[in-house]
């Protein structure tokens, strides 16, 4: 591969950064302009990315060095960007879907007082995410990693006057931080061994030292911990459902299409490391399957439409990690792309519903919206079929490929448990189809159970829905043939894909079709059955409704303990000791001042005495040590 210098590369993250600044500065006075500035910045960036992709010739990689960042002793890191095929795919998704969501937001946030802040943060997020995928070394990636975490916090807690929302933002940031600690540790270990953090240098160094398995296992595990935080896997996924407190476009962009996929991207980028750590890959596979299953099980009983979609995201991320763990990275990226399309469409559709029903999010108060909001309903339906994995929509190809990859993996540590994992994965696929259909049916079919006057949303909101749904419809067929070849220089070759006929495809998607049919049945015709089932499976359904008590367990085990330590540090150390020392010094000065003050009595006699005593002292000095006397 040849590496060419390109300064245009620097413009790609720069545009949204400028947009962020301008949106805030201009938007403070002209609130409505903020959205258009931000959207324009995004669209320009998308244009730049597209032109860069097309100008990329076979096997070429573009590079851009902004400045020398560190030069401390032998530690030498540049703030450098690099554009290869993997980055190209990610950038297209980020800027493309991002532009659509920006457009959507101009209508969704049109009467919010803080919308200039919103668009500033949104563009800032784009900047950070682009840095993440463009980074040429682990440190630039980490800068982007942290940046998206920050923007996530800012955007989740956007309506900060509400304490619950602000706490959700804080929770997201703190949990992410825990993952980041693991990530950093992994970077440190790598640097210590190889003296570099650059991806290309690392890949050559690791490839020429395949015997350091113990180190690679540890590093891979540390990096995966970072991924569990950012990409919401067990045990650090608890922030994602709470993150639904943010505005819906935020949920669509950050928690569906882009930020949460950072972990998958990182694994794909470091594939040369993970391939040499099969033990870690086995652990990742198990955690991924478990996460997907638990999240899907929780989504079955949720009544808030955004919560259903949140757990669905966690579940689908589990699927992506399954593919990554199997070592077939193009499949993980493929599912990442298709998921971005249909999940963004689903979230934006949910936002449209919420907007149309005047901020109602409980599905039990919706229903029959098909006739009020046809465009939203149809696009939502298409995306539902996509996520259920029905041929020939996009989700089918990616999900099918994942299951195939998992089933044929040759990891020695997974030999015994592979069947169990496959069963759970298939079960999860069924549940996915079921609960998504449930959400569709409860929202759009039947009779309207709410009290508002639902209406269709404006074109800025429906146009992106249409675009995303079309991509969900047609992108799959195209990508499944082109993507493996395109990504091969970065992630290696995978098995060849054989063309299926329509019949074969439909047969292979039987799990999804079954889930859709059962869902439709239960939620349009047999309406009493779900409630009865819920009661019958009491302990299980309670477990699902209460999200498997993860938050409660964490609170009991960890949060309370940390809270007690903080209280101690706050009360005893900070207030009593440190403040006491500072205030005590002041008090000491004050007291000594008072004491010294008492010599200023205003009485002449006292002053005369002081003079006399002073003379005495001088005399004393001379008598006992000076020159007079002896």
């Amino acid at each position, binding site marked *: 591969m040849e590496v060419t210098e390109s300064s245009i590369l620097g413009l790609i993250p720069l545009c949204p950064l400028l947009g962020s600044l301008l949106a805030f500065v201009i938007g403070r006075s002209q609130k409505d302009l903020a959205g258009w500035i931000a959207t324009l910045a995004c669209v320009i960036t998308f244009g730049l990315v597209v032109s860069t992709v097309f100008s990329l010739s076979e096997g070429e990689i573009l590079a851009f060095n902004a400045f020398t960042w560190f030069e401390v002793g032998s530690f030498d890191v540049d703030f450098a960007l690099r554009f290869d095929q993997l980055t190209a795919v990610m950038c297209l998704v980020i800027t493309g879907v991002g532009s659509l969501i920006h457009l959507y937001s101009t209508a969704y946030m049109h009467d919010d007082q803080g919308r200039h802040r919103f668009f500033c943060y949104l563009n800032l997020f784009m900047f950070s995410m682009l840095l993440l995928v463009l980074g040429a070394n682990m440190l630039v990636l980490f800068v982007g990693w942290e940046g998206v975490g920050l923007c996530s916090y800012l955007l989740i807690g956007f309506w900060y006057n509400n304490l619950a929302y602000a706490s959700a933002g804080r929770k997201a940031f703190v949990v992410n931080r825990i993952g980041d600690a693991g990530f950093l540790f992994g970077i440190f270990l790598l640097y210590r061994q190889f003296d570099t953090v650059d991806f290309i240098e690392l890949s050559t160094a690791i490839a020429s030292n395949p015997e350091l398995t113990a180190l690679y296992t540890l590093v891979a595990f540390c990096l995966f911990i970072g991924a569990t935080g950012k990409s919401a896997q067990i045990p650090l996924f608890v922030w994602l459902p709470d993150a639904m407190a943010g505005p819906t476009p935020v949920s669509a962009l950050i928690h569906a299409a882009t930020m949460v996929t950072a972990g998958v991207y990182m694994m794909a980028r470091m594939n040369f490391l993970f391939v040499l750590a099969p033990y870690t890959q086995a652990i990742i596979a198990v955690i991924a399957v478990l996460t997907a299953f638990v999240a899907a099980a929780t989504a079955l009983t949720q009544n808030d439409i955004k919560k259903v979609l949140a757990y669905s995201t966690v579940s689908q991320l589990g699927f992506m990690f399954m593919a990554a763990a199997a070592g077939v990275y193009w499949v993980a990226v493929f599912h990442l792309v298709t998921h971005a399309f249909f999940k963004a469409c689903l979230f934006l559709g949910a936002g449209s519903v919420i907007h149309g029903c005047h901020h109602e999010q409980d599905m039990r108060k919706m229903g029959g919206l098909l006739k009020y909001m046809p465009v939203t309903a149809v696009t939502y339906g298409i995306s539902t079929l996509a996520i259920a994995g029905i041929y020939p929509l996009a989700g089918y190809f990616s999900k099918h490929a994942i299951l195939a990859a998992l089933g044929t993996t040759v990891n020695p540590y997974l030999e015994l448990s592979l069947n169990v994992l496959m069963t759970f994965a298939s079960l999860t696929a069924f549940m996915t189809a079921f609960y998504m259909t449930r959400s569709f049916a409860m929202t759009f079919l039947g009779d309207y159970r709410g009290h508002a006057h639902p209406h269709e949303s404006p074109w800025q909101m429906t146009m992106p829905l249409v675009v995303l749904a079309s991509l969900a419809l047609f992108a799959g067929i195209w990508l499944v043939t082109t993507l493996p070849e395109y990504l091969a220089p970065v992630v290696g070759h995978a098995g060849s894909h054989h063309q299926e006929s329509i019949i074969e495809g439909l047969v292979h998607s039987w799990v999804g079709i079954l889930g859709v049919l059962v869902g439709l049945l239960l939620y349009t015709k047999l309406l009493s059955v779900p409630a009865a089932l819920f009661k019958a499976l009491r302990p299980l359904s309670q477990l699902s409704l209460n999200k498997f008590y993860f938050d409660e367990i964490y609170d009991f085990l960890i949060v309370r303990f940390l809270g007690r330590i903080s209280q101690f540090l706050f009360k005893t150390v900070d207030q009593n000791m440190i403040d006491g020392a500072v205030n005590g010094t002041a008090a000491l000065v004050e007291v000594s001042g008072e004491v010294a003050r008492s010599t200023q009595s205003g009485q002449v*006699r006292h002053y005369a*005495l002081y003079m*006399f*005593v002073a*003379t*005495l002292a001088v*005399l*004393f000095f001379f*008598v006992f040590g000076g020159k*007079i*006397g*002896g």
Partner: protein
Amino acid sequence: MEIAFFIMALIILVSGIGVIVSHNPIHSALWLVANLLTVAGLFANLDAHFLAVAQMIVYAGAIMVLVLFVLMLLNLKTERPSSASVMAKVVAAGFGIAFLWMIVPLLNRSFEVFEGPAVGVQGTVKEIGKLLYTKHIFPFEFASILIMAAIVGAVMLSKKKYRQ
């Protein structure tokens, strides 16, 4: 001759202590007069004739009379018994004793060499006059300016306020 010194020294000491101990300021003034007169006597013993007389006329005769005039003019009541707390008196006395303890050996050691009078110089009016009008003429003239300033100052300070 030494007897005279010791008697006068005793009177000086007693009257000095009397000055600071008396409750009635008039009594203090009278003790001080006694002290000054006895010191004049010591001056005479030391052949400082002019100064002895000057002491009697100026110090005892003019200054103390002025003080007594002021005392009687102000018609002060007797000072309250506790002029200062007992503690304060003890402290002051303590410092005084410390001072004495340090200075007396100093004074004595420095002048061990001089046991008796060197040359008996008489401090007569003629001798003092000779020195005053030759070597110390400038301070002498300046002293008169000083006295004039004191007079003006005293008059200014004790005047009643102007009524315009």
